[in-house]
């Protein structure tokens, strides 16, 4: 009797699936320019409020962008670096938002404490979710996370603690006893983003990041290199959820209001994923670009609300058609090419 086929796939369908499974639009290497670009953007953002023309509402709008960028960073860790697609991060956003909301409302804590708590709670649930979805990958994972987002939405809608559609009205934001307005909130957000960006940079360039990317590019090769699939999957989810949880907390406090109306939908999940894919999933400034795009597009077309939806969809389709690895990748590509060329020349390689 003959041995089972060397490739132990269940059917040919699975083989066909295998060819498409690799998410090749995500794989781009880290570049130093990437980090510099992010640092520059952050520096600009930090200094802009000092300009006289900047008004409070502008900072609010900018804060909203920052919130999305942070949320997108969370998704990027999972999708871009570990290769696990989540269409459910709206769930973590909600978890973060409500955790912070309830803590500040009922216990009068600082917004910062709220944010930290949001991070931990969200991270914990992320870890649980990773365990539940341990055996999933690809399309199935996406659907599973979609279900998760919906589930969180239902909980938020129906469990009395969360006040469903009526929502919870929060008091003014307080940090270290001081009430903070638009400026204060903006700086809190920017500093949070800066710290998160630094953290993501550190993770991605460490051995831990290598392990994530190994799992993304080939699970079998990763395991054969000693990567503990369970540990790193859970870790990736934990970090990803924690970061998005922070965004959730900020999202609650920027309007001082949480309600099921906002959080019990799939909009956030889809929007954040979109931001990551459009901006570039495996690039540090990807979430920056994506977050900006997702928030500012409806803003500029606020008058024609429905038209902005259509425009969003059209732009998304066009970007994916011509820049599937994201806009960030297009921007960084000249640097990448130059670097490769330089390295080849230096090494005297015969291959081109």
């Amino acid at each position: 009797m003959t041995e089972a086929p060397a490739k132990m796939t269940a059917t040919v369908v699975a083989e066909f699936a295998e060819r498409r499974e690799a998410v090749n639009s995500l794989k781009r290497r880290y570049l130093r320019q990437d980090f510099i670009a992010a640092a520059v953007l952050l520096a600009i953002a930090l200094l802009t409020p000092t300009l006289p023309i900047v008004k409070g509402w502008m900072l609010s709008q900018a804060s909203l962008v920052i919130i999305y960028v942070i949320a997108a960073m969370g998704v990027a860790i999972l999708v871009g670096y570990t290769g696990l697609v989540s269409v459910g991060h709206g769930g973590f956003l909600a978890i973060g938002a409500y955790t912070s909301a309830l803590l500040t409302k009922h216990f009068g804590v600082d917004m910062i404490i709220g944010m930290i708590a949001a991070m931990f709670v969200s991270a914990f649930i992320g870890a649980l979710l990773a365990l539940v979805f341990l055996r999933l990958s690809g399309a199935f994972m996406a659907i599973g996370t979609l279900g998760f987002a919906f589930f969180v939405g239902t909980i938020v809608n129906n469990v009395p603690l969360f006040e469903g559609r009526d929502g919870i009205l929060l008091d003014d934001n307080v940090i270290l006893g001081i009430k903070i307005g638009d400026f204060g909130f903006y700086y809190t957000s920017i500093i949070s983003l800066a710290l998160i960006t630094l953290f993501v940079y550190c993770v991605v360039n460490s051995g831990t990041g290598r392990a994530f990317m190994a799992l993304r590019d080939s699970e079998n090769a990763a395991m054969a290199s000693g990567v503990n699939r369970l540990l790193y999957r859970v870790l990736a989810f934990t970090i990803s959820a924690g970061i998005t949880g922070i965004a959730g907390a900020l999202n609650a406090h920027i309007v001082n209001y949480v309600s099921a109306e906002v959080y019990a939908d799939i909009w956030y999940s889809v929007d954040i994923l979109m931001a990551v894919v459009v901006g570039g999933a495996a690039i540090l400034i990807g979430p920056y670009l994506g977050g900006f795009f997702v928030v500012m597009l409806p803003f500029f077309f606020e008058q024609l609300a429905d038209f902005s939806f259509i425009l969003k969809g059209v732009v998304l389709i066009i970007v994916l058609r011509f820049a599937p690895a994201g806009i960030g990748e297009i921007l960084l590509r000249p640097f990448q090419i130059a670097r490769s060329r330089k390295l080849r020349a230096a090494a005297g390689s015969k291959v081109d």
Partner: protein
Amino acid sequence: MLGQQILSGLATGSLYALTAIAVVLVFRNTRTINLAQGDFAMIGAFLGVYFLKQLGLNYYATILLVVASCTLLGMTVEWLVMRPIAKSDWLTLFTTTIGVYYILHGVAGWIWGRDTKAFPVTFDPTPINIGGALVSQGHLYNIGWALAIGAVLYWFFNYTKQGVAMRAVTDDPEAAYLMGIPVRFIVLLSWGMAGFIAGFVGILIAPIIYVSPEMMDEVLVKAYVAAVFGGLYSIRGAVIGALLIGVAENLAGGYLGSSVKTSTAFVMIVLLLAIRPQGLMGIQKRREI
């Protein structure tokens, strides 16, 4: 009463099932998770309202027109949007359908407005007595249609040349291509069928759910959960999953309170995936060495 709950669950379940079939069809031929599937039905529902109210057309003519329009919509999406990127990875394909989702949402809101509307055709609320149980006419109607469409699909896949060709493409697209099967046409046909089914779902579900751009969001998620029951590959599995979801959520809603209803689908998928990641009857890619 238990029988009533179950029947009403089967009725909604059969609509989930139709959507799930459409989703599986597109997925197994193109490896695309189509997030816009729900919106195909949504557009169908809006068109239905338009034809019935604005144009005063007869109900059956409306069905015909709506189904035809949605079929056309499906094929247009494939030809215009998906075909140029047909060779991309699945995430790109999926996110592109998100783009279509946004567009359809925007178009519906723009043309017809975002507020919810009632569907102008409702069923005679007097229940029919079947074997002692009082059964709503609406439920029977939906189940009837679902069975009819199911029968048509069954006939299509087993007895028509195109249907058999489509199954060949599913099993091995390269071999099918080498055998002379027009794969591109089959893909177009798959999307067309997805639209075809969506047209029916839109008309059938509209009396139950109010018509709005968001109406199909929840249904779509449940349809996907159902599709996972079949490993995103098996129609039979998807149908069974959908019916299970419909019945389970109705029973849960009846006995545990309506707030539990929507989360049943997720709980089910968690249990299923924890126990059997390949889905009930489907095949998830096994680890390849």
